[in-house]
């Protein structure tokens, strides 16, 4: 393993030197890789014909869970990210079961709503716990254990004034300020490794029964169910898988920077993820990966435009959907083009033959 990582680091150094004319530095590369993973998470659902925009919410869950585990509980990175993925996957089940009955726009709206609820929960979690503990203290429920907990923990602070006023201070998620001082444990090779694993997973998925069922559901849900495909089951499995991939992206990216806060996971993020898929196209897994990389690299490459990132994103989204409906990675278009030229050539040959005959 050790020499592999060394080899990778060598490769990375060279890659970064090659990419330096494009202004791609290591943090940018990391950002591109995380985005590619996110792109694959939305690819799975879109490929199944589900317009779910819950990825931001699951990314937040993955990030918060794994960051808390490494920072507060001292777990290893891989284990905490895995736990984050599992938690997101478990939460995806009760969300998916009712929500995935909805179709296109309704599904989009409901999943946007889910993402916002997650964000607002992260924002207000500390407040909520505070008011709850305050209520418990006032009602003297579990009074002693709370007080002793408060004495040992630096998360919880309880002060009781002489006049009976109770002040509770609880800090875990940090509200709008977020979590600070996260250990920077993730490295580029981990991102690359995870991306490769996900791509392998998806390639194998496409060649499995489940993968074929996904494509069938996208094309005609009712006909798929008449083929013996349990549509509800497949949709939920895909939703869970997509949630887990997004959560992993959250866990990894959470350990790239020292700070995460709820504003990282708002509607903007969802729009970005959608833009990866739209720009790249969703005919194959390569679409969202390339879309994500391009979209992330562009503002850096076009330095001086970095304040215009939002504008460029919007223009690309608009331009891609209007002018590039199949995305950058357009296999069908490419095949069509090849066929077009081939036809041209055979036609030309035939013309030559005809000429020769006459």
């Amino acid at each position, binding site marked *: 393993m050790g020499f592999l990582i060394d080899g990778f680091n060598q490769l990375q150094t060279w890659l970064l030197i090659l990419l330096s004319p494009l202004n791609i530095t290591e943090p940018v590369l990391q950002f591109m890789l995380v985005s590619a993973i996110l792109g694959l998470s939305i690819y799975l659902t879109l490929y199944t014909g589900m*317009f779910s925009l819950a990825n931001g919410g699951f990314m937040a869950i993955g990030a918060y869970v794994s960051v808390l585990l490494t920072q507060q509980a001292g777990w290893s990175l891989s284990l905490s990210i895995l736990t984050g993925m599992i938690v997101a996957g478990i939460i995806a089940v009760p969300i998916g079961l*009712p*929500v995935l009955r*909805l179709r*296109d*726009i*309704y599904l*989009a*709206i*409901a999943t*946007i*709503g*889910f993402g*916002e*609820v997650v964000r*607002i*929960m992260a*924002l*207000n979690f500390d*407040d909520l716990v505070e008011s709850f503990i305050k209520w418990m203290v006032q009602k003297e429920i579990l009074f002693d254990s709370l007080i002793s907990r408060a004495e040992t923990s630096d998360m919880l602070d309880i002060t009781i004034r002489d006049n009976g006023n109770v002040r509770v201070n609880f800090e875990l998620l940090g509200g709008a300020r977020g979590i600070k001082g996260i250990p920077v444990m993730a490295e580029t090779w981990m991102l690359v490794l995870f991306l490769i694993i996900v791509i392998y997973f998806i390639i194998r998925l496409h060649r499995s029964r489940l993968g074929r069922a996904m494509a069938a559901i996208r094309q005609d849900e*009712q006909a798929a169910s008449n083929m013996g495909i349990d549509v509800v089951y497949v949709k939920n499995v895909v939703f869970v898988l997509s949630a887990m991939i997004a959560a992993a992206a959250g866990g990894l990216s959470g350990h790239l920077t020292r700070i995460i806060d709820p504003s990282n996971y708002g*509607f903007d993020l969802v*729009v970005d993820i*959608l*833009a990866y898929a*739209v720009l790249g196209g969703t005919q194959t897994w390569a679409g969202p990966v390339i879309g994500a990389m391009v979209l992330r690299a562009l503002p850096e490459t076009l330095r001086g435009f970095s304040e*215009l990132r*939002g*504008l460029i*994103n*919007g*223009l*690309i*989204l*608009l*331009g891609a*959907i*209007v*002018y*590039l*409906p199949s995305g950058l990675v357009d296999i069908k278009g490419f095949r069509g*083009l090849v066929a*077009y030229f081939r036809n041209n050539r055979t036609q030309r040959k035939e013309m030559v033959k005809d000429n020769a005959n006459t």
Partner: protein
Amino acid sequence: MDLLTSTTVQQIINAVSVGAIYALFALGYALVFSILGVLNLAHSAIFMWGAFIGMLALDPEKAPILIAFSIAALLLSIPSILLEKRIVQPQLLRLPHQSQRFVGLIVRVVALYLLWQIGRPIYGILIGILPETMIIPAIIAFVFSVLGGGILSVILEFTAFRPLRARNAARLAQLVSSIGAALVLVNVAQIAFDWLYNRTEGYYPRDVQLLPFIPTETWIIGDLRITPIRVVILVIALGLMVALQYMVTKTQIGQQMRAVAFNQRISSLLGIDVSRVYIVTFFLAGAFGGAAGMLFGMVFLNVTPFIGESIALVGLTAIVLGGLGSINGAVLGGFIVAFIQTASVTFGGSSYRNAIVFILLFLVLLLRPQGILGQAEENRA
């Protein structure tokens, strides 16, 4: 006891006026959805632009800029529309099919750049002619907001929706393009804010007198304090809604709109100019969004490029509650959301205001996706 009831009444008054704004905003969503079957997520950006334009018009120092810009844009728009219709489109059609889109994109980007370069000196001349400060009556500023919203919305129809319809794209593609359009509009506003105010924030003047003859001082009736602006908002919003209702049910264009909403193909077979109906619908939707934006600014005073974000989801909840595409439902939904928000602020604190709206949205979608006034659709095999 007395205090409690008077605060309750106060809350109700506030909720009703905010509800009127929400309803006005949600109407735009509902109009476009009912006709096009697509959710125009850029509607909230138009709302924001409405608030922004109104703010500029009310600011004596910024008003000349707004006016000069509008005139320059108007002057340029006529030749450029002619150019597009007479020359660009016919020429594009003569190109081979595969390259039409790409060439079209390039041509339009170049054209926009040229327009920008031509527009700048025109703007410079105009701003030189106009006085440094101008005081515009509030009602004219309101008209600016309404027209601005309407025109922006029509531009969206041409750039973001029409090309997709032309190739029969999925409804989701239209949703995505509306998100793209929203991003563009918000970011342009950000640049404009930066340029005009040196920060991404601006304020409405207090006590704007939108309707003549109505005093602007706060009315104090017993324990109640009513700012007249809230009443004015209610009056204007209700007036616009009634006008819309009249238009949709009684006029010819309204009948055509309903026909197109029912079935586009049949409508065009019946000789209805569907494209005109679209333009009118988008204009109306944008006008309502712009109006809602200005009224919002007058109540909450603070305007940023991001005010659309929170109302976007509020509006979404309102139309989902009322039944997507139902016009009366949107109004009802707007008021319901406003009441729930007000109640949640009273009982739970303001930080849960949005959370409650979302949870509501979520529940409605799961339990009754067709909304309160909508009807369940049977799916055909």
